[in-house]
């Protein structure tokens, strides 16, 4: 067997056409890897950045103050009405749904100490990986991301590395004092929040670089911010006019349904963040077609290559008959030489795919948030597909071709 393997492999590199075939099959496999990787990365992006993103699943729902007065309903009535809707998981007044607060304790060389806070509850929090979720005992708590950067300028994040962020070991359990001012700037307030839990986030997911608190915390902050913010004409706090609500939905696919329900109820609705998923679905579909196309062409190419290879090597196999090799031996050697060529092609494809991968990660190293919404998933499944397809093609052609090597014209 060792000798047959030797015959099937060593001399393959001496035939220029084999090198050519190895190169071309390698290039095709590499293209399939690229397309497969783009497809996998798109699917990953779609899943984690869109379908699982809470901002994609949040609607801003509005009835103006005038409308509320005309209908004789209060904000609490609206909240109750919204909570009753199917597929709605959380409702919060939009003004107290989100806020930016500053802590000098979190200031570092590359961070200005600002934290984006969002209202949440235990039923919709992301997965906690360390610590605990909200408790009844203490409402002045927050849940922060594992990879955490206290900065509000997203562009600056492009140039930051993981070590520039907040150490999560130090963060958990720590009480962070936040300072903020009233809208007029005349009054200063402080609120202290203890970090009780860390949630799982991707280091490149800037949108998830947020901390979660209970809604009552942001309501308190909001009330203080509007403490000296009045509508002089009507003598009421301008907070009264903040009648928007944030409505979170269970699944992105239900967003259209909830939007329609809300519109039918007379609300104005806009998504907090909306990505044209149709665009990505279209791209993914085209990628699927391209992958299928590339693999089909590759399959045909492999068949042609095996045909050509057999024609070039046929005399050598006939010679082997004279030299005392049995049909079975020759068939095996032919098959092994084909598989060897395919393996080398796949290894070549893997090798050249490392170049753009290396470049991509090198760029990411310099500009880590350049592709902050995009995580590269390298898909090597095409290599396995190519190998299996080629193995089957080679097996079939080896039986077919070697049959004719030994045709006896005897009846």
């Amino acid at each position, binding site marked *: 067997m060792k*000798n047959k393997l030797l015959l099937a492999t060593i001399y393959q590199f001496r035939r220029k056409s084999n090198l050519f075939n190895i190169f071309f099959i390698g290039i095709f496999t590499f293209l399939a890897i690229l397309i497969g990787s783009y497809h996998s990365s798109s699917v990953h992006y779609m899943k984690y950045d869109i379908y699982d993103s809470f901002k994609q699943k949040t609607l801003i729902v509005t009835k103006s103050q005038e409308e509320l007065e005309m209908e004789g309903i209060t904000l609490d009535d609206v909240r109750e009405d919204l909570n009753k809707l199917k597929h709605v998981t959380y409702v919060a007044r939009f003004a107290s749904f989100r806020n930016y607060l500053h802590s000098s304790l979190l200031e570092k060389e590359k961070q200005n100490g600002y934290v984006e806070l969002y209202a949440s509850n235990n039923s919709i929090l992301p997965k906690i990986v360390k610590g605990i979720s909200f408790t009844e005992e203490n409402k002045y708590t927050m849940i922060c991301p594992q990879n955490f950067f206290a900065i509000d300028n997203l562009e600056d994040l492009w140039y930051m590395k993981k070590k520039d962020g907040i150490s999560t070991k130090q963060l958990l359990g720590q009480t962070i004092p936040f300072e903020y001012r009233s809208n007029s700037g005349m009054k200063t307030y402080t609120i202290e929040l203890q970090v009780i839990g860390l949630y799982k986030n991707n280091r490149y997911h800037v949108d998830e670089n947020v901390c979660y608190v209970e809604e009552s915390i942001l309501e308190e902050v909001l009330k203080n911010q509007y403490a000296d913010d009045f509508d002089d004409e009507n003598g009421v706090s301008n907070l009264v006019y903040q009648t928007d609500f944030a409505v979170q939905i269970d699944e992105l696919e239900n967003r259209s349904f909830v939007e329609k329900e809300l519109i039918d109820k007379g609300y104005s609705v806009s998504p907090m963040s909306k990505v044209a998923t149709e665009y990505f679905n279209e791209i993914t579909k085209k990628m699927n077609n391209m992958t299928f196309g590339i693999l089909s062409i590759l399959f045909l190419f492999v068949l042609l290559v095996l045909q050509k290879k057999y024609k070039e090597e046929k005399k050598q196999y006939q010679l082997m008959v004279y030299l005392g090799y049995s049909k079975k031996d020759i068939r095996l050697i032919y098959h092994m030489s084909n598989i060897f060529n395919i393996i080398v092609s796949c290894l070549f494809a893997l090798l050249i795919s490392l170049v753009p991968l290396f470049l991509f990660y090198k760029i990411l190293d310099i500009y880590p948030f350049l592709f902050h919404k995009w995580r590269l998933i390298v898909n090597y499944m095409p290599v396995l597909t190519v190998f299996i397809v080629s193995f089957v093609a080679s097996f079939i052609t080896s039986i077919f071709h070697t049959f004719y090597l030994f045709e006896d014209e*005897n009846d």
Partner: protein
Amino acid sequence: MVLEVRNISKVYRKKKQKIEVLKNVSYQFEKGTFYWINGKSGAGKSTLIQIIGLLLSPSEGSILIENKDVSTLSDKEKAEIRNQKIGFVFQSFYLNPLMKAYENVMLPMYIHSKYSKEERKEEAFRLLEFVGLKDRVKHFPKELSGGEQQRVAIARALANHPNIILADEPTGSLDPENEEKILTFLKNLAKEGKCVIVVSHNPVTKEYADKILLMERHTIIEEKSYEK
């Protein structure tokens, strides 16, 4: 006696027509003898060589190699006999262009082989020296002349020290000078005890032959010795 063919016939059927290629051929071949099989085209010479070489099955009759009937053996067993007992030399040399001279010589040694890796190489080098190509062992066939390539082919035929050498038009592609060299080699092999069977149209072959077999009408019609 190293080889015997008994009542060998070969018939092909094309549509409903019977084509007789060999008809009741019987002969005993001895060691240490150079046989020249001669005859017109279509007499059945190449078919006889193919049958002796166990590459074709006869329609009737049997073949004995070293007193053992080999005509009914399996493909694998016939392949082993070809590898160990028979060496082939062809008109077009039939060397593997991707292998160097010594690698071509080693080719029959890879299977059913008693040689280790080092012994294979040593034996190949020795055989190439024997055929006068000591300085060309690492050359590819395209770097060798016609005569040199045929000598490599002869060395390859001797790789497993067979007792029978079958040569089908071994000088067909060579100039007169190389013809003489090749025929001399084959003659020397016969002198060393091998049974050398040469099929050829080349009349020069008769000067080297111990026995001349004339084939006509699909059978051996005459056997004679060459008188110098």
